[in-house]
């Protein structure tokens, strides 16, 4: 007898798209109609743009259905399960034929995301059938020494995936060298970059791989206690981590003398963050775990020497930990076979913005940014013109279209003025104003600055005031130079990555899109038509139907006209609020 499995993707983005209802519907159908299949849950496979996703697999192969809303679920189950007739039009991926999104999955190299979307994240058994906990078991059985584990990580060449890019093996080596009866391993899951959701997907989709990575790290540095510092904004990730921790404890994978290693006592607890971007910085994170205001402190001493409760501490990011079990099992050479000379392995990117395929992709280091956006991302929405891509979040920068052949590795990206960061990739098209984007990020870092360093606290405020002026049509000659001067002062005189990186969005947009700044300041125009005070609103007399809607909604009474006659906007009264533009159903308000 063949077994058919129906799997529903229940990650945060899937649930937001309605996957919960889809799951309930299929469950109800299975029960009322007594259908013969196994219903399972999984997490995000990265294809966020086709959520909700439902996979049906049997002995013949796998069929992944996209956009399976509640209504479509009925149709799919009816046809595919009952009549054995797969609906080709709805299938987005299949190993049997050339489905529309096959390329999206097949062009990726999945190490970090090896289990995401392929198993039930709430089942430790499923993780174990997929080589789960084999890495740490191998260390226990083969009695691999701590030095050898660290050497393997060093040889693999893996660098910190949280943004810094510091070699992970070296971090472990330092933490190992500092002797203490009490040591800590911390997993940084405080993913705060707006536009980045890699860590969330890993925690939701494969929490055990992160735990296993932490256990290996704990063994290597002789740590006694682990802490996962997770954003409170990720309730599902916290729930799944909590389940995973309980399961691991029940199996004896956490506790005393674990994995047959005499004297290896280790347990992990979750610490919920409370909403402060700066806590992604390791010393601020430690302050926050200690229950204080999350303010960074001067380094050295580095956490490897004096971290949590002043004990040696090793901090790595979620994605780094998820790589570790794979490296131990497959060897350093297999990992180092991917990537470039100085950046090994793969990198997960969260593709978002004006790109057709928003979602999560994992690619080998060395792929060009253009390939990520066009081959995997499916190009720009509505066939608009690709303008720039923002990499690295608020500390990163904008890379213009003509540099899109830059390859994805730490050093090449840094050379453009952006940073790899944690892997948020926000794509921008011709309708995005680069001055506005710079202002957006600076506003974010200004709000999130902890206030410790004057240059960061005051400097970002001053820069924001200048940008505000420019986007309001009050820019002055010399503003660009003032921005640059402030930017370098802030970079040079801030203690942590937040301040040092805060000016990057402004500096890169000035470097690559200076003409847009000039257009705002000198010509009082916003080329992308985003900055409202720089726009002129007029009525297209041909398109205007005289419906009176704009006239009634205008808060300044700047519009006159009569029913069925073209309206008129009096420029001297217009406050440029944009209400007429958003209310008009006939596209008859022209922006110039």
């Amino acid at each position, binding site marked *: 007898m063949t077994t058919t499995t129906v799997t529903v993707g229940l990650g*945060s*983005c899937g*649930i*937001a*798209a309605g996957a919960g209802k889809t799951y309930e519907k299929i469950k109800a159908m299975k029960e009322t109609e007594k259908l013969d299949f196994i219903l399972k849950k999984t997490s995000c496979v990265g294809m*966020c*743009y086709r*959520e909700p996703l439902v996979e049906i697999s049997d002995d013949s192969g796998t069929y992944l259905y996209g956009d399976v809303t509640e209504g479509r679920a009925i149709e799919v189950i009816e046809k595919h399960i009952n009549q054995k007739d797969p609906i080709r039009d709805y299938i987005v991926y299949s190993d049997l034929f050339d489905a529309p999104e096959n390329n999206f999955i097949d062009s990726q190299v999945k190490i970090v995301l090896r289990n995401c979307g392929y198993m039930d994240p709430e089942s430790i058994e499923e993780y174990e059938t997929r080589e789960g906990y084999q890495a740490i078991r191998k260390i226990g059985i083969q009695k691999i020494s701590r030095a050898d584990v660290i050497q393997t990580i060093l040889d693999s060449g893996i660098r910190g995936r949280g943004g810094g890019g510091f070699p992970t093996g070296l971090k472990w080596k330092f933490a190992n060298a500092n002797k203490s009866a009490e040591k800590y391993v911390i997993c940084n899951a405080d*993913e*705060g*970059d*707006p*536009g*980045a*959701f890699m860590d*969330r997907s890993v925690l939701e989709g494969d929490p055990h791989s992160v735990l296993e990575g932490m256990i290996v790290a704990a063994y290597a540095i002789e740590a006694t206690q682990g802490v996962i510092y997770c954003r*409170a*904004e*990720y309730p599902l990730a916290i729930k799944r981590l909590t389940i995973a921790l309980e399961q691991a404890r029940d199996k004896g994978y956490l506790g005393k003398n674990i994995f047959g290693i005499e004297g290896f006592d280790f347990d992990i607890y979750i*610490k*919920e*963050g*409370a*909403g*402060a*971007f700066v806590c992604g910085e390791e010393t601020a994170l430690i302050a*926050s*775990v*200690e*229950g*204080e*205001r*999350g303010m960074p402190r001067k380094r050295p001493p580095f956490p490897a020497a004096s971290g949590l*409760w002043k004990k040696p501490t090793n901090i790595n990011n979620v994605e780094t930990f998820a790589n570790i079990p794979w490296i131990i099992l497959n060897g350093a050479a297999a990992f180092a076979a991917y990537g470039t000379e100085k950046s090994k392995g793969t990198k997960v990117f*969260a593709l*978002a*913005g*004006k790109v057709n395929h*928003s*979602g999560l992709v994992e690619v080998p280091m060395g792929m060009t940014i253009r390939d990520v956006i066009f081959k995997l991302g499916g190009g720009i929405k509505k066939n608009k013109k690709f303008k720039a891509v*923002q990499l690295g*979040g608020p500390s990163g920068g904008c890379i213009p279209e003509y540099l899109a052949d830059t390859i994805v590795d730490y050093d090449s990206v840094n050379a453009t003025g952006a940073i790899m960061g944690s892997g*948020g990739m*926000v794509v*921008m098209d011709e309708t*995005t104003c680069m001055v506005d*984007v710079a202002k*957006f*990020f600076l506003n*974010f870092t200004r709000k999130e600055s*902890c206030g410790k360093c004057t240059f960061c606290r005051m400097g970002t405020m001053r820069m924001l005031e200048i940008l505000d002026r420019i986007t309001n049509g009050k820019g002055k000659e010399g503003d660009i130079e003032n921005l640059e001067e402030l930017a370098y002062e802030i970079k040079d005189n801030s203690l942590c990555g937040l301040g040092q990186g805060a000016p990057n969005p402004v500096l890169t947009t000035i470097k690559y899109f200076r003409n847009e700044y000039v257009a705002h300041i000198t010509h009082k125009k916003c080329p992308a038509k985003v900055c409202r005070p720089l726009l002129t609103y007029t009525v297209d007399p041909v398109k205007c139907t005289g419906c009176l809607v704009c006239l009634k909604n205008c808060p300044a009474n700047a519009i006159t006209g009569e029913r069925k006659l073209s309206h008129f906007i009096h420029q001297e009264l217009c406050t440029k609020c944009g209400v007429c533009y*958003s209310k008009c159903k006939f596209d008859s308000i022209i922006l110039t």
Partner: protein
Amino acid sequence: MRITRLAPEVKKKETIDIDLTLLDPLIARYKGQKGNVIPLLQGVQDIYGYIPRPAFEKISQETGLELSEMFGVATFYSQFRLAPVGRHIIKVCHGTACHVQNANEITESLEDTLKVKDGETTGDRLFTLESVACLGCCSLAPVMMIGDQTYGKLTGNEAMKIVKNIRISESN
């Protein structure tokens, strides 16, 4: 040069009755633990929806934590609220992906509909409007979240309709 300080705002005494005994299990759990300030405050907020002044005072008396220390932590992190909130908290995402896809329009439309500014609560205590950094559903941008429900690919008009529908169903 002396800088004139702003006079402190005199607030009316909180009129809502607060059952402080609800705090007892929380205090029992975390009393004396190191690094307990954030979990304590998170616990208080889970109970009351915000952190009322009497709760600060009670915790300070029973655990010996300084009021200033707790207040310092509570005002540092954006998660903590010091004023009561509406029954429905509307979180409009202003992450990068939402920003470039016009999240401002959503906030403006809701400000207009609810007659409150960002961060405020409506007079009937039904809605609190908030901007948040990133909800992590970038593929559905622009997004807002009301309670546990996420609404994606919004326009200003749709956001307004969703809120109006909640108001109608609440008044029935």
